[in-house]
């Protein structure tokens, strides 16, 4: 039991840190609330979908920005829009903010700025992915040890 308590405490601390650092926001908490007996891995599923989506979009944007002929800013705009929507749905705050910044450069059709933002975006995305994956691992450990995932306010 002590081991479970330890894990749970670790989980709570880690969760709080995510919120504190601004990696996730309140929307993420809302998503956690939607987990119940019918959909026990809801957050994980949404997260994996997001990761897929995100990677795809970042790739597309990278390719688009690589184009020597001319950057298709419209396409980039669409991608950013999608990413912004996804990230706000999942509660990935920093990713969303990066998107907003990206958008302004995209509207200004500033290729340099866009590249820089893309880099920033990738960085945020990797950070998010790591952190979330660690969190999910902790969850699994707790469940395997027989405990229940504590609710974080």
């Amino acid at each position, binding site marked *: 039991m002590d081991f479970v308590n330890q894990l749970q405490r670790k989980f709570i601390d880690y969760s709080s840190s995510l919120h504190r650092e601004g990696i996730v926001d*309140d*929307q993420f908490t*809302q*998503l956690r*609330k*939607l987990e*119940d*007996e*019918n*959909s026990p891995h*809801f957050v994980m*599923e*949404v997260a994996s*979908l*997001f990761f897929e*989506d995100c990677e795809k979009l970042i790739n597309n944007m990278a390719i688009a920005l690589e184009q020597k002929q001319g950057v298709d800013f419209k396409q980039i705009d*669409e991608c950013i*829009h*999608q990413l*912004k*929507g*996804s*990230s*706000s*749905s*999942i*509660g990935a705050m920093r990713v969303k903010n990066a998107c907003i910044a990206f958008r302004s450069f995209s509207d200004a059709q500033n290729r340099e700025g866009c590249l820089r933002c893309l880099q920033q975006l990738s960085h945020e995305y990797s950070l998010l992915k790591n952190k979330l994956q660690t969190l999910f691992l902790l969850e699994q450990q707790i469940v395997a040890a027989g405990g229940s995932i504590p609710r974080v306010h």
Partner: protein
Amino acid sequence: MESCNCIEPQWPPDDLLMKYQYISDFFIALAYFSIPLELIYFVKKSAVFPYRWVLVQFGAFIVLCGATHLINLWTFTVHSRTVASVMTTAKVLTAAVSCITALMLVHIIPDLLSVKTRELFLKNKAAELDREMGLIRTQEETGRHVRMLTHEIRSTLDRHTILKTTLVELDRTLALEECALWMPTRTGLELQLSYTLRQQNPVGYTVPIHHPVINQVFSSNRAVKISPNCPVARLRPAGKYMPGEVVAVRVPLLHLSNFHINDWPELSTKRYALMVLMLPSDSARQWHVHELELVEVVADQVAVALSHAAILEESMRARDLLMDQNVALDLARREAETAIRARNDFLAVMNHEMRTPMHAIIALSSLLQETELTPEQRLMVETVLKSSNLLATLINDVLDLSRLEDGSLQLDLGTFNLYAVFREVLNLIKPIASVKKLHVSLNLAPDLPEYAVGDEKRLMQTILNIVGNAVKFSKEGSISITAFVAKLDTLRDSKAPEFLPVLSDNHFYLRVQVKDSGSGINPPDIPKLFTKFAQNQSTGTRNSGGSGLGLAICKRFVNLMEGHIWIESEGLGKGCTAILIVKLGMPERVNESKLPYMPKMPTNHGQTAFPGLKVLVMDENGVSRMVTKGLLLHLGCDVTMVGSSDECLRLVSHEHKVVFMDICVPGIDSYGITIRIHEKFTKRHERPLLVALTGNTDKVTKENCMRAGMDGLILKPVSLDKMRSVLTDLLEHRVFFEAI
């Protein structure tokens, strides 16, 4: 005489003898012939004669005898041989018949004789029957008389009439000389002559009750023959007449009767009156059994009739008494009302008169406090202020209490903030509590409505009073105040059996518990707490500083609020808990912009608020689509996902109640879809509600949505609670535009 053929002369020349013989024979024959004729004639006349055969025989016998004698007439003279043979034949026949008749008569004569005895027997029987008939008739007469008597007696409820009628009717039936009724006196030791038949006004003639004859009569329920010399029977002036037989019978008196017995309860055992009946003197009449029976029956009937009359008198008396009491009560009530009005007037006047100087004193003393004073002066001023405050409170309390008791106090109902009331109480009590180093904690239940309808001022006064008491009577420790909405089972507390709450839709019962760890109260003293002016003396040296009215007023306020208040304590030194339940109203739904929507039921995770609600979600973005779907699934909806407008148009049906469309995605003409959906569903109730989900917070988007014909707009991100409340609102009002 030998027959000869010689011719003889007609008249023989013999002597007288022959002549006489001739005549006798003639007469005999005549008689003999007439007897049967007579017999036949008379028998024919009578209807019954059983012996016809005998008659025939007798008739034959006589006729033949007559014939013989008749033929004899011819034999006196010379007669032919024919005559002789006829004569002989006749004689032979006669002989035969007479012998037979003689033989027959041996049988017949005893029969004829017995007829006579039977006749005598029947005559006796008839006489007996006649007698019995007479008896029955008399009995029936008696019965008729009894019925008539009873009818007469029972047709009236007046005691005197009953008795008079009895005597009169008895006289009529039995033809008495005198009939009298002797009643027991008040003392019960004597019988007094109360009613007589002939004498109009009997003088108070009394006879001691313990006479052997009287005892004998009283001990039996039959009519008893008594001697005419008995004192009760000596009613007429003694004359030289032979007095007629006298009969006496007892009449039971029920103790409810109005014969002056009410003052003597110990004489409630059976009391009897005596009825004496005298037959006319010199008439040699005897008391017959049926007459005695009649008398007994009458006596019983009289007893019953008298008791009825007595009961009627009693009830009339009771009714009169009640009427008098009614009048008296009415008068008392009017007087009480006048007194109350006078007192109220007095109080109102005095109140004003008292309050004005009080305010002056308080105001000026507080002003004085502000000025420069020596310490001594300051102390004096403070004392003055404190005392005058107390006095002012006392005046207010007394006035309030008197108004409360009259029922003339009315609550000022209004909508107020319940949480604010508690916060205020806490703020007011905190200074005092902190001085005494008492810890005060307030615990409000989450389901407690923020706003309520009731009398804010008086509710605060009540709660403040209770909390103040808790603080006052605790030297150390902590005070906890809890408030929550009382559910039905907690309302029916065993400690408050007379409190019968009634739940209704727009009211709720607020339950406040104030627990302190102070000096506690002895359980037997608890009921006294709420009575006015009753101080709790047993807790000794305590400067209560109160007039003892506080709790009494609280109780009355609580009663006005249709609630209940009581105190529980386990004993001295164990602290006590004051519990208060009041009925408050629910405020009407306030405008959304002022208050957040307060759900009536406590929310819990996983509650499916919209089971089976068919919803269509259109969103190009996979992640956001999944999130929205998760939200709606959690709320129990049946979610269909589409990723493009074509799919949306294809799949949308009248079964879907709501369509959520994400309109921030460029490329999807959400407004176009809206118009097409409107075209598809012409009937309004078939069309699903169209709601836009957007992250755009500009008014243009909202206007566009409205113009396109959408029913709602929600800003992303959507939390679970927000989605729930939006759906509720949407389904209720069929429109929901979030304030941007």
